[in-house]
């Protein structure tokens, strides 16, 4: 009961934040009513998906300070579970999604247990490695379509199919992911003030001190990693139904892992709004850059250069990202 109350309790934010959040929420709810291009709609859906990825990453990477660069493997597990189950056994999204989450969480325990013996950069590199290995395995695994991947053909179903999440119009997908987006915010809002949330922040501050305050550091990290994983896997399942065409190279690539971490870091790791702010900057940037510059020969890698620039800028100016700057200014004003 208290947990539910805490999830809806935003009272520790200044009124300005809440007003902005309310306006943004209203805009998101009414966005499809405004005239928009199909491209804008697709970008909005991407924005919501990546916000959720970022929120998940933020629990372990932001609040816990454990930089994880292997989130794509869980996108893959979620997406493949849903796609395989739908194609082979006609199991609807609402059943396959939690099953995918379970698979992802089990996998996260298996790799999290040894990986959290590592610290800092070593941990980050190890997460990249596991993610790449899993991707390579999926590329040769015939049961899931190997390198060709899987395709959900919508003709077999009669959209709108709310059970299987097969729609013709993007507006349905938009509202489904928007629902998850709001749930995600409520969850993270609860998490940040929960016991586990505090323990993670203490671990980020100083592991020895955290241990001497009775925190089982290793286990707290593994638990939070599982939470982050569940978020990512859920969106992965959605991704399968939305994109309908999944292959290892797209869904499990290193690019996705890095983009997830980068968004949260740019927006502000370890804050509630950070990943959303990060996604709202990077996702439109990414889509529109691809659209405008990708078509011209020779400019195809330019988005990667821009990401690199952003990483350097964030780490040099304010490691806590855009939200870190906002908080710094506020603290200075209060004095």
């Amino acid at each position, binding site marked *: 009961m208290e947990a539910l109350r805490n999830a809806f309790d935003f009272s520790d934010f200044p009124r300005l934040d809440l007003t902005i959040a309310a306006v943004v929420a209203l805009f998101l709810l009414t966005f499809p009513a405004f005239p928009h291009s199909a491209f804008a709609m697709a970008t909005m859906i991407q924005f919501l998906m990546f916000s959720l990825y970022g929120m998940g990453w933020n629990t372990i990477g932001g609040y816990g300070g454990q930089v994880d660069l292997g989130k794509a493997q869980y996108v893959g597990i979620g997406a493949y579970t849903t796609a395989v189950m739908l194609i082979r056994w006609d199991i609807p999204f609402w059943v396959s999604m939690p099953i995918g989450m379970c698979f992802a969480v089990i996998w996260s325990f298996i790799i999290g247990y040894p990986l959290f013996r590592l610290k800092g950069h070593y941990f980050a590199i190890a997460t990249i490695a596991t993610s790449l290995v899993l991707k390579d395995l999926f590329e040769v695994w015939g049961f899931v379509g190997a390198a060709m991947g899987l395709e959900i053909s919508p003709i077999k179903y009669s959209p709108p199919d709310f059970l299987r999440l097969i729609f013709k119009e993007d507006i349905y997908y938009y509202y489904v992911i928007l629902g998850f987006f709001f749930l995600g915010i409520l969850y993270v809002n609860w998490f940040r003030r929960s016991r586990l949330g505090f323990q993670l922040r203490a671990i980020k501050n100083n592991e020895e001190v955290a241990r001497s305050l009775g*925190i089982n550091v290793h286990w707290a990290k593994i638990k939070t990693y599982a939470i982050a994983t569940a978020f990512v896997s859920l969106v992965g399942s959605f991704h399968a139904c939305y994109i309908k065409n999944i292959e290892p190279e797209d869904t499990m690539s290193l690019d996705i892992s890095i983009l997830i971490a980068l968004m949260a870091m740019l927006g502000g790791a370890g804050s509630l709004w950070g990943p959303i702010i990060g996604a709202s900057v990077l996702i439109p940037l990414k889509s529109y850059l691809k659209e405008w510059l990708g078509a011209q020969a020779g400019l195809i890698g330019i988005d990667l250069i821009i990401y690199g620039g952003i990483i350097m800028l964030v780490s040099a100016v304010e490691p806590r990202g855009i939200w870190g700057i906002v908080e710094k200014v506020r603290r200075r004003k209060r004095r």
Partner: protein
Amino acid sequence: MALLEVHSLHKDFGGLKANDDISFNMEEGELMGLIGPNGAGKTTLFNCIAGLHPVTSGQIIFGGHDITKFTAHEVARLGLARTFQVYVASGDLTVVENVMVGCFMRTRASSQAKARAEQILKDFKLLDLSDYLLIELPVAAQKRVTMATAVGTAPKMLLLDEVAAGLNPSEIEEIMATIRHIHNDLEITVMLIEHVMELVMKISDRLIVLDSGRKIAEGTPNNVAKDTNVIKAYLGERYVQEHAAELA
């Protein structure tokens, strides 16, 4: 029965004997000082007791439990808390949030942890500083916040590592009042490492003196101050020889 028993504790770092055959007992309600020159092995002893270092040999018993092989968080959960000499905080947590982390050891509910943290801060006269970040505070206040955080875990016994180092006389008074509050009002058994003699001599019931990893003296502050071995450890062999007449 003693609250804490340490039986011939050894801790080697490679060839270095950081703790060499240390034994002592502590009764419930005692306030004991642990002194000795730099490098005597005081902090190592704390780390061994608190489960941060695995011990080489020996036995540690706390409240009837053999905690020799316990990890740090298990020791803390049994009610043996500690503070750190050098506290590096990245500055993410405010004062009240720091104390809440301690309180969360005994409760799952955020509201309870918060209420308890605020009560502790009030008792420690730190409530005005609740919303500051730890790094924004002067060192004396930081040290008191770390003590409040440790108290948040509701310990039976508290190990304080150099809480008065580098403070001015009025700040030392504050720290002393805080230690007395912890010991007298909260009835927590306290063991403290301290170089500030006016504090440790005034406040301790009993002292243990370490030098080069070995226990060289144990007793009341007055007796320890007259102990030839202790004077030798602090002032050197020659001083003792030259002043033999006065010391006798």
